């Protein structure tokens, strides 16, 4: 199978006043094209931090301190992958929401309360599909001018067209320059000598500084009255937004685009969040506990929606949850995380049939069963404080099979059987 994204030993730390919280302790996962990948573990085990590291949106005081995150997007980088940790912020902005996008838990707080639904969804188009939208707008304007129905307004339309064309030209030039820079950056990807690293940093800074808009348009956009020329573009985008919402099963999409988040129900809000993420048909959708805080029927609807979308418009899904039932239902492969460690990675069937890691075993035993009469089993002890994590395997203080070696070095991730990876000294 073709890889889509791979993390190699990422370490993400949070530099707080109490000390350095070592949230990720060398997490390595591989998400393949077309697969639904699950990430399970209890609260605070680093699931969310892992995906935020992948998108590079770990917020201050957090920082990715070590590791590699490789992205295999286009044909030319199928072999090597792009290490996004070595790329500029502007490059990441072009990736986020476009190739990788994310939906969050608690849709009600993930939507901006003062911006209309229409604008919030439209922003995805504005950020990543501006060229297509401009072309469409210019086409409609051309059609309107040629229809000859407008006598005085015709001049205004010609002016609009002129400005949109200027904007499009600027954008094309920008894309061209960015493509050049990215190509050179790709060549320098694995460079180790100082001169190349300097050049890479220089190119990254240059890419950050490039602006999408041409100065003329930027200026015109702030002029009173004339700035309204942009409305035509928003009208074009609005059509796309309405289509997208309709596709996602939002009732009355024409009205909903003018509404604000607080006017919608929880399930609708979550659909809007999904719409924002799906606007540009991402290759990877990261779903960070998308169903928590929703009631059960809505949960089922959202899960079904993601399943359908998985088949129609997105390549891969990285699904974060602490609900093992959902994992069994949704995912192809799954990684179990504990306190910043990726303990075990396996195909879903293997994991449920033959859990290897003591933590996975404990986790599966503590799932409530309908027919069970006995008291529910639990794993003794509590999750460690990540400022002073246990040495070696972070699970060893709670592990029933702990040996001396477990407190020494971190256990390496080994392939126990085909596709079943485990980091535990019991299997070495």
């Amino acid at each position, binding site marked *: 199978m073709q890889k889509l994204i791979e993390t190699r030993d990422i370490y993400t730390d949070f530099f707080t006043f109490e000390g350095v919280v070592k949230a990720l302790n060398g997490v390595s996962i591989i998400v393949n094209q077309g697969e639904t990948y699950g990430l399970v573990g209890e609260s605070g085990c680093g699931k969310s931090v892992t995906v935020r590291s992948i998108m590079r949106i770990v917020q201050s005081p957090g920082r990715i301190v070590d590791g590699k995150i490789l992205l295999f997007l286009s044909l030319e980088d199928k072999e090597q992958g792009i290490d996004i940790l070595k790329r500029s912020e502007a490059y990441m902005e072009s990736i986020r929401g476009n190739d990788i*996008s994310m939906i969050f838990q608690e849709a009600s*707080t993930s939507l901006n309360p*003062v911006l209309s639904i229409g604008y919030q969804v439209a922003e995805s188009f504005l*950020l990543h599909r501006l060229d297509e939208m401009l072309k469409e707008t210019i086409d409609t304007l051309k059609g309107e001018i040629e229809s000859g129905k407008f006598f005085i307004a015709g001049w205004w339309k010609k002016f609009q067209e002129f400005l949109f064309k200027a904007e499009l030209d600027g954008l094309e030039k920008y894309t061209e320059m960015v493509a050049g820079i990215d190509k050179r950056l790709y060549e320098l990807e694995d460079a180790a000598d100082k001169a190349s690293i300097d050049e890479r940093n220089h190119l990254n800074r240059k890419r950050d500084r490039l602006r999408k808009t041409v100065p003329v348009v930027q200026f015109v956009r702030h002029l009173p009255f004339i700035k309204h020329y942009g409305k035509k573009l928003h009208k074009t985008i609005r059509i796309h937004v309405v289509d997208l919402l309709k596709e996602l099963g939002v009732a009355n999409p024409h009205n909903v685009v003018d509404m604000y988040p607080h006017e919608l129900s929880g399930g609708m809000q979550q659909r809007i*969040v999904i719409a924002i993420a799906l606007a540009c048909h991402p290759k990877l959708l990261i779903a960070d506990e998308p169903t928590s805080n929703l009631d059960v029927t809505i949960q089922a609807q959202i899960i079904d929606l993601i399943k359908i979308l998985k088949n129609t418009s997105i390549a891969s899904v990285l699904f974060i949850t602490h609900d093992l039932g959902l994992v069994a239902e949704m995912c192809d492969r799954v990684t179990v995380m504990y306190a910043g460690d990726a303990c075990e990675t396996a195909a879903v069937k293997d994991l449920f049939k033959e859990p290897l890691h003591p933590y996975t075993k404990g986790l599966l035993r503590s799932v409530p069963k309908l027919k069970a009469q006995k008291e529910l089993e639990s794993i003794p002890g509590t999750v460690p404080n990540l400022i002073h994590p246990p040495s070696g395997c972070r699970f060893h203080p709670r592990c029933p099979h702990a040996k001396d070696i477990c407190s020494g070095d971190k256990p390496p991730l080994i392939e126990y059987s085909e596709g079943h990876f485990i980091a535990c000294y019991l299997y070495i």
Partner: protein
Amino acid sequence: MVVVLFGVSLFVFAIMMIIPPGRRAAIYVTQEKITPDQMNAMIKKYGLDDPAPVQYVRWLKQILSGNFGYSVTASAPVIEGFKTYFPITLELVLYATPLIILVGIWLGTIGAVHKDKPLDHATRVFAIIGYSLPTFWLGLILLMIFYGYLGIFPPGYLSNKGKDILFSPAFKRYTYILTVDAVLNWRWNIFWDALYHLALPTINLILLNSALILRLMRSSMLEALGQDYIRTALAKGADKRTIYNIHARRNAMIPVITISGILFAGLLGGMVITETIFARDGIGLWMARAALQMDVPAIMFNVLFLGTVFVVFNLIVDVVYAYIDPRIRLA
């Protein structure tokens, strides 16, 4: 609104009633010597020793019929006094407040965006200075440096040459706001002259008052930047500028707008010290004089006026709220 104004007038009138009738009458006495009989006759004539409610109703009747009385401190009817003093205050406030708000919002945003970096510390130092400096000290120092040493930005509201033109019949007063009138009369030299005199008090007000808005903006911007929707915007691929300007700022503006409204209204009434130092005969100065000399009509009118200003500004603030936050629009 009417209820609020009624309450305000009742309260202030009650305080005025504590002052004995003789002292309230004293301001109208022009002769050097006056006999107690004459004084009593005067008190009787104007009904100053009537029961307070009777006096209040009499006053209210006059107010409602548009008669605000005669102000001795302005040596003109109250309305005329208001017309001469108020535009001078209004002009300063009109120039200073938008700048105060803009500077506050701008520096506050910078502070929040560069949290705990040198720029943030610089804005904090600015804020502390603005908070803690007394108005009279800063005003005098500014005057000393600019007018005293450098010889620019004189106090007053117009140069003598400008005043000659101002009081000539050719110069028509439309709004009584100098710069606006100057433009309407197409007298650009007066316009620049007026601005030249406005510069120093404006700087003074900005330094003193933007600190509050700065601090408020910084903290509410920081709060907004920590919200979940900022994370959504980041995940969407929005650049920093979009996030600060579109996603965070509007959410951060709400407390700032409340304070801005109060600040604007407050400045309209109470710039006594600034107006004294920069020798601008504004409404603050007039009110201070009126209070010292027991000029009851002037005090009552100005209090009512300020009450109206506060009520109106609260209304404006509410409207702006609704414009910014859709959740308030429907509630």
